[in-house]
């Protein structure tokens, strides 16, 4: 459903993403894991059509994002790590705007909006200005907007940022439900428990390169470790943490 081939992004001399190739299969949840600054957000911004790759190709549902951007974008729903919302619109107006952007059918779209507002406990707030929403409510509204046009694949950059336990639980349940309905989810995270709980396959990115890929068990085997956090730290050079802690122990 999502195919990255030799994807590279250079900012001047700095290579943020280096020859990244991976494939997210139909109906699976694929988690791209990596420490801060590993190149996850750059990768997702290229997939979403916000950044132009220096080289390589991105296929979404078989469509090349550079050659056939409209079809590729229609197939996908994108959730950025720091979403923007029009503060002076109401929640309902914002969703109406998204309906228009994706060219959805009016009646069907209105039903879908009502369903999503209810599912995300926003029905009562639909007519209020977004500027009056809490952080969690804004987050839920953004997720609703990404699901509105019933995409085949959801591309999510750091889905749990700023969510309370209830919000995080909601997302996890939602992702499982979407997977059960055949949706593909391509997400980035550095929350290991989320990846452990949700992902069918995990790719580990470090300094712009994909350094490991597989199921949780395959990764554990690869790193000769029993728990996932040790696997992650071993692969991404996180043993330095111990050194840092020691430095702080004066």
């Amino acid at each position, binding site marked *: 459903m999502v195919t990255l081939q030799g994807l590279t992004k250079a900012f001047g001399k700095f290579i943020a993403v280096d020859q990244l190739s991976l494939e997210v299969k139909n109906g699976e949840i694929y988690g791209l894991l990596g420490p801060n600054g590993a190149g996850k957000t750059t990768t997702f911004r290229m997939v979403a059509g916000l950044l132009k790759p220096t080289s390589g190709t991105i296929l979404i549902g078989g469509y090349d994002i550079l050659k056939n951007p409209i079809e590729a974008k229609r197939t996908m729903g994108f959730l950025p790590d720091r979403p923007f919302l029009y503060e002076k*619109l109401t929640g309902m107006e914002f969703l109406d705007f998204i309906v228009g*952007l994706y060219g959805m059918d009016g009646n069907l779209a209105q039903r879908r909006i009502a369903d999503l507002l209810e599912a995300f406990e926003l029905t009562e707030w639909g007519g209020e200005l977004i500027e009056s929403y809490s952080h969690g409510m804004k987050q839920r509204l953004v997720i609703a907007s990404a699901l509105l046009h019933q995409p085949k694949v959801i591309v999510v950059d750091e889905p749990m940022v700023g969510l309370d336990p209830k919000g995080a639980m909601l997302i996890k349940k939602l992702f499982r439900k979407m997977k059960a309905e055949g949706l593909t989810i391509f997400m980035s995270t550095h929350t290991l428990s989320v990846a452990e709980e949700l992902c069918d396959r995990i790719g580990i990115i470090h300094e712009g390169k994909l350094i490991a890929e597989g199921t949780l068990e395959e990764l554990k085997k690869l790193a000769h470790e029993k728990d996932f956090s040790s696997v992650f730290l071993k692969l991404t050079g996180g043993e330095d943490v111990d050194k840092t802690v020691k430095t702080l122990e004066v």
Partner: protein
Amino acid sequence: MRAFFLLLRPAFLSMRRRISIKPSEGGLQTQVILIIGLLFWVLTFFGFNFFLSHVMAVEEFGDILARKLMAMVFLTFFFFLIFSNIITALSTYFLSDDLNILWPSPVHIITIYYARLVETVIDSSWMIFVFAVPVLLSYGVNYHPSWTYYPWCIAVLVPFILVPASLGIMATMILVGIFPARRLRDILALLALIFIAGIILLVRLLQPEKLINPDAFTSLVGYFNAIHVPDSVYLPSIWATDSLMPLLMKKGSASVFHILLLSGLALPILGSYLAEWLYFATFSKAREAKKARLTRLEIFTSLLQLLTRPFHPSFQALMEKDIRGFFRDPSQWSQIFILGSMVVLYLYNFKLLPLNRLPDNIFVFGLTKEGLQNAISFLNLALAGFVTAGVAVRFVFPSVSLEGKSFWILRSSPITMRRLLWSKFWMSFVPLLILAEGLVYLSNRFLKVNDVVMVLSLVTIFFMTFGIVGLGTGIGAIYPRFNVENVAKIATGFGGLVFMLFSIGFIAIVVYLEAGPAYRIILAQTRHFPLIPKVVARITFHFSLVLALSAACFYLPIRLGIRSLERIE
């Protein structure tokens, strides 16, 4: 087409919401702004009407001069619009946050281009449109053309605005493509310099004061050569002028209108081809991170530490943060160039004043030539004060709002709001004082005033700056705008308006209070009128009032601002 209107909807709805706020929620602000706008509009109309009627009264050449004047106005609009569109397009096409929603959605690049074109045109050109109406109306009032002139004005203005808008947008796309976006501020600096150069060039070329003074020239040819308005057939300002003048003078139809209309339609389309080819690549470039080059240099840090060394450590920390932030944020410091052009023009106009050409035996309001020079210098104080207030509304008034969403850091730290505001005050006061004193000193030098008037002006502007910076810091704290996305917009809110009104009032009262004493002093200096004790007492009283007023403007707003910040939860 549907998608195009859809993309305009959020901006339209947001604007409607801002306008239709109820009085209980601060809706009065919109009404106040509208009333002031209307007043400004009426003033423009009467001012221009007065000037135009004088121009037209010049025997035999009235019509020719009126045409030249219109060409000047349109040429000025054209230059302004190009620059304003470049700046606006940077924001609407490249920096605006909502592009993060639009680009991942399945909307065609051309649709985004056209929707943003409309937003850019409205954002950058509404002021010109509003300003052009009284100008064109006064032509109508003076020429009594048929009613078709008025709809024709709209028909001319629309393509006239579209031409510089399309040129500005295309220039922005190319510039962002050439320069890496991390050097966006370099681009802005470059644009601002071009703008200043353009303005100076324009003023040099136009010299509008010569229009109503044909007697100053020895020959007719010399006169017309002096009023040199660029008259190229390739200039849209000439197309617009020659589209309207035949109607005013009832001399047939205007064939150049077709060129204007064609350009107004063709250039946006040409821009769409450029956008299809270049926009995504340049937009992607604009997402790249910026680097702080200058402000990370060791010499900059050392200089900063040297500057802030005499202050308390928390004062020091605040000042260092603000100065670094200022130089790293192009939207803040690039405004310097626009204000710089204002200052250059200001001084340049003083150099152009024809005081040297006045006859030596002139006698106006009981003043000799020398007295007149000194009186103008005194009135110049009001202008210098106004320029200082103009700079303050851009740099001093926003200083609290600039803390933005990170205001909580200061609020939760052991720093008091008193210390915060005073640090803002002193940091703004020093550069503004240098600017204000510099303006007054240089313009007085151009005017060749005597020493007493020079000292009086320099001392007055010193106290005025205290008052203006106090008002700016205080009112900025009373009306903080922590959530404004574009820094340049902080000054355009209700608080900015309140500040400007108070500043103008303060400057006017100071000038009023000092006018009498200054007149007496000038008479004493130039015509040796005696300063009797009663007059000296009155002069002292007036100057004391100025001092008291300056102290009140300096202290009270800051005190109120401190209270207001302490109440923020």
